[in-house]
């Protein structure tokens, strides 16, 4: 047994995000000490598991957090805490690709000697097969992330026969893979960094593998998975670290992930030292207690996300822009923040792009004194707008998810709408259903509450996805433009901004900021707040690092 070398409790020097970022920067200095932290078992808990283990299929942040150290793509986000986590680094590719042909051709040279956890070496065949597999397994982002690859159209139409001929070209001898796009895509590397583009062994069946683990190249591998009970993750015996940034060797030997119980139980278990971390957010009820009783164990991190309430611009009364604006003026964002656990956990916003996100410029139109930030609701203005619209007395139903926060917001909005003179009701639906239910125009949802978490750090991932004409599919359950907002002018500007991003990212970001303002002018949604992530750790966990993409980097942490 290795003697304990670290006298200090890690929690004490990891109280806030700022210090963490600082520490992440200082990390190399501690390299020697870190080896001493190798070993041990992390005990994670979550109320529920999230279905299939297949990285080409699963689209949940819970499992993406795990894929970070289970699988690799050609490129990936840097696995460090802080702002640097938004950077893309070479992963299975030896270096970032050469981009040619006006941004349409990406050439990757694969690293040599990388092995899957089944012992087999990774080759170009695996890369080609993996890209085909994204389509064959009907990956959720096949049609949205990877449809720009040459041959993707045929693959989407007939997934079983997908070849991506001309799209993915491998040179086995040289160990290179070339990807050809139909049009330049400044966000393509981000998309390749998503777990959906993980490289899997070529022989992996082209079907959703469900609960059966697929061998990966990451530092760890799944030993067993029972979605109703637990997941056991152990070190990948075939792994040797090739890039600390892309896939660091983890500290702990084993990660036991238990599913079940309640959030309250998880908090108790962590406080009682029976678990190390909970996936779910601690219940609001416990926050005050935690912030005094265990401040050292709590880590807060801003998220690239927003909570918003899409207003259906095609249904009365929200087909009148004045009503949408009125509601934006009327809501007390401060009250909403207190519903979410207070200012430490959420920041009131009145624009689409979250703070510190590419393209974000502080702006707020819907406040008592319009300017950079929100100060207070402007009820008079709101009443006046409602009066002008002549929609007073109409019925409005708010569709919320059945979690405490969403329901609370719904109840609050119902209250505000009543104040404005509407006849409002709340309808609560289970989260999984609510998300597709509110998208389908057939369900005639007027106002709903939703959240959006960035897939990758690009403004279009918010604005274009949520308010672009291409994301509006009437009558379909998959119509992420919930508001049904389609403004030709704004849509054209967004397309142009995406194109601009390929050549001049800075100019593009400036344009996105303007588009953000223009969208809010039309007010297809109520921006509510930007949430913060709360990680509650046990006292024995150290080296907390938070990545914008993967959230807490589990493999980077150690246990005493």
């Amino acid at each position, binding site marked *: 047994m290795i003697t304990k070398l670290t006298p200090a409790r890690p929690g004490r020097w990891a109280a806030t995000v700022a210090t963490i970022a600082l520490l992440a920067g200082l990390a190399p200095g501690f390299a020697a000490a870190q080896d001493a932290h190798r070993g041990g078992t992390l005990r994670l808990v979550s109320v529920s598991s999230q279905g299939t283990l297949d990285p080409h299929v699963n689209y949940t942040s819970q499992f993406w957090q795990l894929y970070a150290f289970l699988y690799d793509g050609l490129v990936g986000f840097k696995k460090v805490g802080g702002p640097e986590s938004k950077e893309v680094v070479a992963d299975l590719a030896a270096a970032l690709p050469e981009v040619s042909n006006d941004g349409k051709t990406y050439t990757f040279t694969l690293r040599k000697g990388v092995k899957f956890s089944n012992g087999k070496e990774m080759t170009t065949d695996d890369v080609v097969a993996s890209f085909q597999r994204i389509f064959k397994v009907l990956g959720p982002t096949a049609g949205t992330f990877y449809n720009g690859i040459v041959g993707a159209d045929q693959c989407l139409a007939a997934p079983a026969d997908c070849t991506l001929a001309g799209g993915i070209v491998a040179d086995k001898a040289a160990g290179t893979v070339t990807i050809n796009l139909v049009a330049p895509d400044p966000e393509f590397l981000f998309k390749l960094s998503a777990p959906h583009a993980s490289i899997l062994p070529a022989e992996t069946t082209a079907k959703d593998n469900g609960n059966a683990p697929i061998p990966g190249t990451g530092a760890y591998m799944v030993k067993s998975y029972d979605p109703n009970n637990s997941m056991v993750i152990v070190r990948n015996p075939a792994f040797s670290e090739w890039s600390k940034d892309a896939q660091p060797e983890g500290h702990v030997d084993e990660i036991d992930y238990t599913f079940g119980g309640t959030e309250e139980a998880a908090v108790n278990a962590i406080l009682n030292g029976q678990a190390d971390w909970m996936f779910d957010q601690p219940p*609001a*009820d416990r*926050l005050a207690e935690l912030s005094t009783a265990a401040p050292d164990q709590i880590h*807060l991190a801003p998220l690239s996300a927003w909570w918003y309430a899409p207003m259906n611009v095609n249904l009365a009364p929200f087909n009148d822009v004045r009503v949408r604006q009125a509601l934006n003026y009327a809501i007390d964002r401060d009250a909403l923040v207190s519903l979410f*656990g207070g200012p430490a956990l959420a920041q009131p916003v009145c624009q689409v792009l979250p703070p510190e996100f590419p393209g974000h410029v502080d702006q707020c139109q819907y406040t008592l004194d319009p300017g950079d930030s929100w100060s207070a609701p402007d009820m008079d203005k709101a009443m006046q707008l409602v009066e002008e619209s002549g929609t007073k007395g109409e019925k409005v*139903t708010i569709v919320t998810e059945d979690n405490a926060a969403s329901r609370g917001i719904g109840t609050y909005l*119902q209250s505000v709408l009543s104040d404005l003179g509407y006849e409002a*009701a709340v309808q609560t639906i*289970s989260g999984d259903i609510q998300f597709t239910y509110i998208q389908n125009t057939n369900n005639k949802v007027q106002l709903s509450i939703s959240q959006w978490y960035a897939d990758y750090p690009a403004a279009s991932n918010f604005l274009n996805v949520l308010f672009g004409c291409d994301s509006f599919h009437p009558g379909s359950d998959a119509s992420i433009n919930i508001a049904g907002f389609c403004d030709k002018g704004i849509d054209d500007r967004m397309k142009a901004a995406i194109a601009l991003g390929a050549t001049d990212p800075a100019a593009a970001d400036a344009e996105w900021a303007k588009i953000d303002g223009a969208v809010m002018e039309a007010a297809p949604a109520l921006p509510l707040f930007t949430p913060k992530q709360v990680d509650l750790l046990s006292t024995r966990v150290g080296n907390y690092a938070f990545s914008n993409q993967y959230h807490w980097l589990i493999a980077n942490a150690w246990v005493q």
Partner: protein
Amino acid sequence: MTTDQPETGSMPPADAAGGALPPPAGPWRRALQGLASSRTAVLSGLGLVLIVLATVLAPVYAKHVAQTDPFRSGLSAKIMIDGKRSPVMERSTEGLGLGVTPIGPTWGPKYFLGADTQGRDVAARLLYGGQNSLVIAGAATLLCLVCAAVIGIVAGYAGGRVDTVLSNLIDMIWAFPVYLLAISLSIVMLGKTFEIGPIHISSSSLVVPIIIIGLVYVPYVARPVRGRVIAITNSDFVLAARGLGIRPSRILWRHILPNVATTLIVFAPMLMALNIVTESSLSFLSVGVQAPNASWGTILQDGQALLYSRPVVSMAPGIAIMVTVMLLNLFGDVLRDILDPKSVRGR
């Protein structure tokens, strides 16, 4: 056979006619007298009346005592305590400053039991919620009894194939665990608005839980009703009525129905108690009463989010449910003893 009846010390009126006649006492009047002479029944009945009265007076309480609208969020409300204005939603200032805790019981006119996560007055909501809980439980009881009576009587009286079909249907629903059935019905009805002619039922209406809760217990009542109907149909007085040449419809209406009525009445308080618990369970699982309406179950659910910081929010409706259900059961026990000492058992 002649039997000595040690328990009837007083003989029935002598065989010879005449004498001063006591006022005629029908079975219903007798039952009423029985209830009136039972201390348990009187006290529990009185308790129930008080509860009903309290919930009926909810608007008065909310308006004049608590001076609040229990259906409006009070997230930024303030309250005077010891001459100091403090927010109803207290933001944590210690440690990391996380969390917002609603004010606890003031034991004063305003926020007597404190506030919930929306900053609303829990005491006022408890009364309003009680109103809804009682209305739902009562209406569901009525619905259940009517359905069960119809099914039970038709099955029991018609017999033969009709009975077989209905009994099998009842058995089938019986095999569906109640909560699963109720939850699935609730989920089916959640997203829907029903329009039957001029009647418009939105999913947030109380009608939805009433129908669901009313329907799930039908088999539990229809079965014994059917049994009772069969027993009555084979009883001597129905046989006598047939022998007298009374029409079947009249036999059903005048001879069978009034005698089944006792079974149904005996079920009523027990069913009502069961319905209150069921309503609260469904609301607790968020498939019952929908916001902005409140019921004891929804308050309990709200309280679940405050269990650690403000346990009173879930304790209060829990105690309200317990007391109401206990009173109903006590009353029901006496009623059963009086009306139907043998035919209904247990639950």
